């Protein structure tokens, strides 16, 4: 059983942060602190210049990271450093072009060596994913794909087959970002998804409160919180207690 599968032994709390926002050193400290605060898997965003699936909060984090010269190679180095101190499951979360540009075979090898557990590219459809999936799976990396409320039943079947580790359900149409309410049709969507997969299902997009995390856990196996945490980071940039504050926020969400 790999680290990701083990993470779903309980209802999983999965924070997302953009690597290098506000710096790679802070990202390392955040990963360690959030892991200690109960994060079961951590998604590390690898910044891309044109993040079409992201709302304004993660767009700004991406810009901050890129302005500091964060690259995929540096994120892999960061993972190597984290692995000296922590075994928390780590997912790379990016867009396809930076991964493709790095070289898929090279990425698979370097990511496994560094201690990455899985990869997700938000603009990579199952149809276009064959070379990517074979490279990643040969190296032993999980490939997580997104399932959307608009996905047809046929598509859900192929998405479920292509995913390993867990399936990422997008809670609603739209970009990443906080929402007041969970989508009304989420329950139904997750029930449909269950028919297509035995994998754990994590839900993301729009989750920002402990109540929403608990509500998601009622129906699914994990809850991903991105923009709310990134916004908390943004709020504390330049302050000495940033890591403590974000870890406390993360703990509050998991409660």
């Amino acid at each position, binding site marked *: 059983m790999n680290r990701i599968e083990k993470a779903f032994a309980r209802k999983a709390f999965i924070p997302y942060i953009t690597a290098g926002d506000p710096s790679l050193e802070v990202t390392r400290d955040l990963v360690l602190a959030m892991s200690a605060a109960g994060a079961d898997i951590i998604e590390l965003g690898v910044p891309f210049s044109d993040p079409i699936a992201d709302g304004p909060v993660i767009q700004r984090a991406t810009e901050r990271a890129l302005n500091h010269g964060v690259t995929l190679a540096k994120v892999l180095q960061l993972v190597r450093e984290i692995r000296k101190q922590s075994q928390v499951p780590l997912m790379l979360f990016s867009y396809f072009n930076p991964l493709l*540009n790095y070289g898929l075979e090279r990425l698979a090898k370097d990511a496994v060596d560094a201690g990455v557990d899985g990869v997700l590219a938000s603009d990579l459809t199952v149809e276009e994913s064959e070379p990517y999936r074979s490279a990643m799976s040969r190296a032993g990396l999980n490939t997580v794909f997104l399932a959307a409320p608009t996905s047809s039943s046929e598509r859900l079947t192929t998405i479920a087959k292509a995913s390993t580790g867990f399936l990422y359900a997008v809670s609603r149409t739209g970009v990443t970002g906080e929402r007041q309410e969970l989508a009304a049709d989420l329950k139904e969507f997750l029930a449909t998804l269950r028919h297509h997969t035995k994998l754990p299902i994590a839900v993301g997009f729009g989750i920002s409160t402990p109540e929403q995390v608990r509500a998601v856990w009622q129906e699914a196996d994990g809850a991903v919180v991105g923009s709310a945490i990134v916004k908390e980071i943004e709020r504390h940039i330049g302050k000495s207690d940033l890591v403590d504050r974000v870890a406390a926020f993360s703990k509050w969400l998991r409660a």
Partner: protein
Amino acid sequence: MSTKGHFGDYGGQFVPETLMHPLEELEAAYDAAQRDPAFHARLDDLYRNYSGRPTPLYFAERLTSEWGGGRIYLKREDLNHTGAHKINHCLGQGLLAVRMGKKRVIAETGAGQHGVASATVCALLGLECDVYMGEEDIRRQELNVFRMKLLGARVIPVSSGSKTLKDSINEAMRDWVTNVRTTYYMLGSVLGPHPYPTMVRDFQSVIGREVRVQIIEKEGRLPDVLVACVGGGSNSIGLFYDFVQDSRIQMIGVEAGGRGPKLGDHAARFSGGRPGVLHGTYSYILQDADGQVVPTHSVSAGLDYPAVGPEHATLHDTGRVTYTSIDDREALAAFNELCRLEGIIPALESAHAVAQAKKLKLSPDQIVVINLSGRGDKDVAEVMRIIG
């Protein structure tokens, strides 16, 4: 697993999963429309009576004599309603949006030509229209912004990234992924995920089909060389597509050489870019060593974009089309020359094609067709600022 919409190695569908269903819907609607004679009849009627097609193929006698090479013809897409070829694919896509029962249209625009064409078609068909436009482009193209407003569209400023066309497409895609069930995305070139590159090409291919008939009427034979500028690549593919099988005909696509060959100073994807994925498709893009898309520059806003349509990528790799670049200075010189010699103010985009045609070594009996993709009224203020 079947993969759709590929041109050789290029093209495809690289989008967030939420957009796959609307793309499938769009493809099905487009296929059905293609088989429906009523759709074609309506589109042909609008081409003819609304936009003014067929556009003339004009023999440029003074350019021909001044350059002293081949016989120069201009395909007058600038004489279309709204002043550019963009209306061709907007009319097609507008009719499709109506067929699909969508009430709201979104579009992106750089210089404003596609935005104006989209706003025009939405007014004609009674559709709500939101156009995403970079703050930097809004500043540069004030007149087109007002035009869109007159036509009833809402212009939404984009302040992210470089505040230009690339970022407007990002923002339009974010809108689409959010309002996917009600909204039609009227993409402005042969870019983006399948079926856009194919569909926009089909709507634009009317240009080449007309040229074939017109040149045979005038010269009794097919041309030797076709020249068109390439931003996303819609006007060029529109001219080339009907002639791709005529292997004797030389085809030249002209990219923006901008200020020079340094990355960031131009939009010459084929000489300065590498294959990668941007805005839903795999093609040549201008990117840095880490796969981040880089800013571009051209005096012409319509060519100022870091990626190129995927069909061009394969036409490039197979050698069927030759891609060259013309810099800002050469384009401005050609802009002036066409004004002075023919009394035609061309779009700065089209001036790149004119400049390239002038460089060709031709014998007097050779026939060249230049796609004059748009008129230059929109560029007059910018040219005034540059040359005074």
